[in-house]
């Protein structure tokens, strides 16, 4: 008998299970099929405008900075202003996300754009979130050919663009959206739920920002 079957056999014998018990199998299949949401806190259950406001408030509490722009075409200017305001080199790393690619970056003459995954030497990276969660101020980013995961972790400053319309009340709504986009039981390789900039409390329980991931998280909310 191989190790897998040994372990499963031990589990069954400890639980005193009859392996042919069809009711158990059915209960598990149903549960996996239904994926029912459980208790969803009332906090995030708000109309869209208030949801955006709650998201900004919660993200602010997590030490992220939040900017609002009216249209997607305003994003490159907001990025340049962020970099200038913090005395950072005028350069950003980004993937080839079509929502970012459609923005008028050329108008920011001084801004240097680097594409592809981060090599660890980028001061600032720009990503586009697929969604955000008002309840906790969390950004949701998915990996793919156009969205390298390294940009979320290696740059010192992570700038994330999110559409106001994609700010949901709770994680459950976001999970349902991912499920309908990728198909039941399938997932992108990586889903990053990001709540504020990187931090550590490992030395004397003192919280310090910028442990291994970005020291600063800047969120640009478009529209809303």
């Amino acid at each position: 008998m191989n190790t897998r079957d040994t372990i499963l056999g031990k589990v069954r014998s400890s639980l005193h299970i009859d392996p042919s018990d069809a009711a158990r199998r059915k209960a598990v299949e149903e549960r996996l099929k239904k994926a029912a949401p459980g208790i969803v806190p009332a906090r995030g259950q708000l109309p869209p405008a208030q949801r955006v406001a709650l998201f900004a408030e919660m993200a602010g509490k997590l030490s992220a900075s939040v900017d609002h722009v009216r249209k997607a075409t305003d994003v490159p200017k907001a990025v340049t202003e962020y970099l200038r305001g913090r005395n950072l080199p005028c350069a950003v790393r980004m993937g080839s996300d079509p929502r970012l690619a459609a923005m008028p970056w050329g108008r920011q003459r001084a801004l240097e754009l680097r594409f592809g995954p981060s090599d660890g030497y980028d001061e600032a990276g720009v990503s586009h979130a697929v969604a955000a969660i008002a309840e906790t101020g969390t950004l949701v980013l998915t990996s793919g050919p156009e969205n390298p995961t390294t940009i979320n972790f290696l740059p010192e400053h992570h700038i994330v663009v999110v559409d106001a319309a994609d700010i949901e009340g709770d994680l459950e709504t976001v999970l349902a959206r991912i499920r309908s986009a990728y198909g039941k039981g399938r997932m992108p390789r990586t889903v990053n739920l990001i709540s504020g900039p990187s931090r550590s409390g490992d030395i004397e329980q003192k919280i310090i920002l910028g442990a291994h991931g970005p020291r600063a998280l800047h969120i640009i909310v478009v529209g809303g």
Partner: protein
Amino acid sequence: MDITSPAFKANARVALADGQLQKALGNVRAGFIDKRRKAVDALPEFEQLRDRARDIKNHVLEHLDLYLEAYEAKVQASGGKVHWAETAAQARDIILDICRKADARTVTKGKSMITEEIGLNDFLQENGIRPVETDLGEYIIQLRGEHPSHIIAPAVHLNKEQVEADFRRVHDHLPDHRDLSEPEALLGEARRVLRSQYFEADVGITGANFLVAETGTSIIVTNEGNGDLTQVLPRVHVVVASIEKIVPTLEDVSQILRVLARSATGQEMSVYTTLSTGPRRKGDVDGPEEYHVVLLDNGRSAMLGTEFQDMLRCIRCGACMNHCPVYHAVGGHAYGWVYPGPMGAVLTPSLIGVDRGGHLPNASTFCGRCESVCPMRIPLPKMMRHWREREFERGLNPATQRFGLGLWAFFARRPRLYRLATALAIPVLSLMGGRKRRIAWLPFAGGWTRHRELPAPESRTFMQQWRDREAVARQAAR
């Protein structure tokens, strides 16, 4: 690692006399309790979510075989590989084999208690592979040749001066006069030193907070981002997790996430919750080319169906030790193995045997705070009692204790004799208390009175007082 759990008493004595440790433990008492309280108060649904989280895990444990099968099928469908390990030794061999096939010389590691449990670092080192811990706390204790003293704050037993001394000793390529007096500077230095390691590593090893049966996803919940760099930069990602980490669906994860960070650090969400499903996809420009999951049993399947099954609901948040007066007093190393505090006191005898871990369930005041804060509502004191019973049944506790308990049991089973004995003893003890009403020395109880005084009892027993009260009440009723 060497198991020193049988020497708990001696360990505790050393810990109580250790000034540095006592200073550092002040941070546990001061930090975690308040933060948790505030986070819990800010979420009205918290108690309901605890019930729900408990029910989810109970359901999983009752159907664990089926969920493991479903999970495995999904990992395979997403291009990952599942390895099953019955024992720590098997898990180590599997991981070494993966590392050898990847021609690995350096392995980065995200924080993982399960790799502590299987003693992975020493094993890799013995086999010529260099493991690099990347979580700040884990990095510090790896430099010191120590083990974590807390399951979520591994270096909580240290003060910043000790960390500074270690960094000066190990990072000897850096200038001597650099300022490392503040935690910010220490963190900055660790960040710079570890950056190159992520890129050098051939294999990245992480644990998992959850394994999702619905999708074959493994999830890590972290704050620093080191776990993510560990899994995204090397060519091979290995997830090591024990079999009870399974949850049915993503929605179930969401429920437990709402109690996890609040109970652990008092955060609403940890900074990074990362869901990983399989290796790099077609067209991806980063991410690991291989994705392996090592599923470890190591004694868990034997806990199912016993009075210790509830312990398998544990999500390793650390709330029980953060609120434990014994942990506050002696810290984590005194417990002598991987898991300290109340959860360690229950889990350790299950995993290494009651003959070696039997002292730990006795390291409790039975104040019940651990159970009252456990997000998964694990009845920790009850299970510690079960272990004490087993220890007694097997004759593992010392002769004086057994004699005392035997004596007590003799009287407890004979109520009349008990009442007679107490009616005789109480006036004597009361007299011994003198005017201060305290007893400073008692024959056969020197172990107690050496450290504290015993309050002298009232001059009559409870039964006698009760009888008098009843008599007065009856008379008044007439």
